[in-house]
């Protein structure tokens, strides 16, 4: 058994795994780590199965006091984490001693930091997943963000996975200007020529209203096609175009059905990168059909 206690609250810290699958038919979003690659990297560094739940910190992450000696890893956004005030490396396995205080600082680049502990959190699964879904208050740690005084416990786990050293050259660089490949969505053909041009020519700015449900893009205004759209299935990565003309990229906590034209869909292997974008970042969309 291992445990830690939260002694300073982060901006939004939740438990996430790779997500909840098979329940979208009940309107239940997938949830899961917004940056799934950093979750899997954090797990593999400490020798956990890659699907294990970890802590997802958005912006400032807070301070944890460890009640037991533990092996941890910190991945994702570059945040200069400290142990008892001394900066430690990310993307390495770290030994933490009883009483040590780990602080996840505000990221310098990217916006989400992941922390894995060796073992598996002693929490109930909800619909086969540990992921927290805040809007309906279920999953993870009592369906909520971690707060001062909360204690997390974990069990040691039989794992065939050997903890692996992470090659330095593979540590992702989270730029504030990114290009993302998209495929045409079902209603792409309903866009007018001018909107198609704007979709791929300029770059969009990430709006402050963005969250785990969706990334709102501003900067380039498109014209939402004028036809009666029936509510239709959507998935994370779908780019919707509401009447405002500002596209929304649906993320992990995004709805299951949507009534706005689905003009595009993010190439799945690149979706994790969007888990690190923040207000003011620039996103350029590249058509998969022109590559």
């Amino acid at each position, binding site marked *: 058994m291992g445990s830690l206690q939260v002694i300073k609250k982060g901006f939004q810290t939740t438990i996430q795994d790779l997500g909840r*699958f*098979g*329940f*979208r*038919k*009940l*309107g*239940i*979003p997938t949830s899961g780590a917004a940056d799934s690659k950093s979750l899997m990297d954090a797990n593999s560094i400490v020798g956990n199965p890659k699907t294990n739940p970890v802590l997802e910190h958005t912006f400032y992450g807070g301070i944890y006091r460890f009640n037991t000696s533990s092996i941890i890893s910190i991945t994702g956004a570059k945040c200069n984490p400290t142990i008892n005030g001394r900066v430690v490396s990310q993307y390495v396995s770290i030994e933490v001693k009883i009483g040590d205080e780990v602080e996840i600082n505000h990221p310098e680049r990217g916006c989400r930091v992941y922390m894995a502990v060796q073992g598996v959190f002693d929490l109930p699964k*909800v*619909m086969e997943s540990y992921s927290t*879904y805040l*809007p*309906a208050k*279920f999953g993870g740690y009592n369906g909520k963000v971690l707060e001062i005084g909360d204690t997390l416990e974990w069990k040691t786990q039989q794992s065939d996975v050997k903890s692996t050293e992470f090659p330095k050259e593979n540590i992702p660089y989270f730029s504030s200007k990114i290009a993302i490949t998209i*495929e*045409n*969505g*079902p209603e*792409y053909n309903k866009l007018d020529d001018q909107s198609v041009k704007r979709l791929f020519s300029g770059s969009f700015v990430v709006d402050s209203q963005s969250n785990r449900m969706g990334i709102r893009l501003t900067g380039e205004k498109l014209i939402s096609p004028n036809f009666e759209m*029936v*509510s*239709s*299935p*959507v*998935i994370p*990565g*779908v780019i919707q175009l509401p009447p405002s003309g500002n596209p929304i990229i649906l993320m992990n906590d995004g*709805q*299951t*059905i*949507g009534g706005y034209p*689905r003009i595009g*869909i993010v190439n*799945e292997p690149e979706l994790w990168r969007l888990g690190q974008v923040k207000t003011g970042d620039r996103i350029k969309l590249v058509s998969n059909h022109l590559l």
Partner: protein
Amino acid sequence: MEFRLLLLDGIHWIITELGKQVLILEPKVKEGHLEKIHRIYQILDKENDPIISDIVPAYTSIAIYFSASKEKTLNYLKLLDFSKLKSNTSITKVVDVHYNNGLDWENVLAKTGLSKSEIIEKHSSPVYTVAMIGFIPGFIFLDGLMPELAISRLNTPRTKIPAGSIGIGGNQTGIYSLESPGGWNIIGSTNQQFFDIKNQPPISVSPGDKMKFNPILD
């Protein structure tokens, strides 16, 4: 995106892709989309084959999430045996509605031009079909609203609608089974609980079920 046609349950379906692991099937029929969609939903839900990881029915299309290859999935779909489906055996669930708990009566009266009692009468007389569940956990979309009751959504959605609220949005009516934000005109509420995270599955209705409203005037 690739389009193709698939013959299934005696009709053609237009197939499109949404990403790499989702097929969207749209019945090529003039009317009765929902009924066709519910037939395929029911058979896939019953068979529960690991090849299909999720199924999301909507009004005119159904999303099929698959874990095998696309070809394997299409072959699996082609072999579905629809003769096993029982026709319309579902019982009609009666839901008590407190229409006096409506939050938007003023709006609804103005938009429909009808009286409150006419609206209650028209809203509580049809037998509705649960069209789908979503867009958020437990939201129950009902098909069968009388056209006279179709009204536009609120200009500014509410940030919080209490669990059990019943509303009208466009030509649809539905139940917010969990507290959530929303833009529908709320005309009443029910004390009946449809969503409980402790239950398996957490929602007590499924697409294709029948539902009727029983007015409680207190």
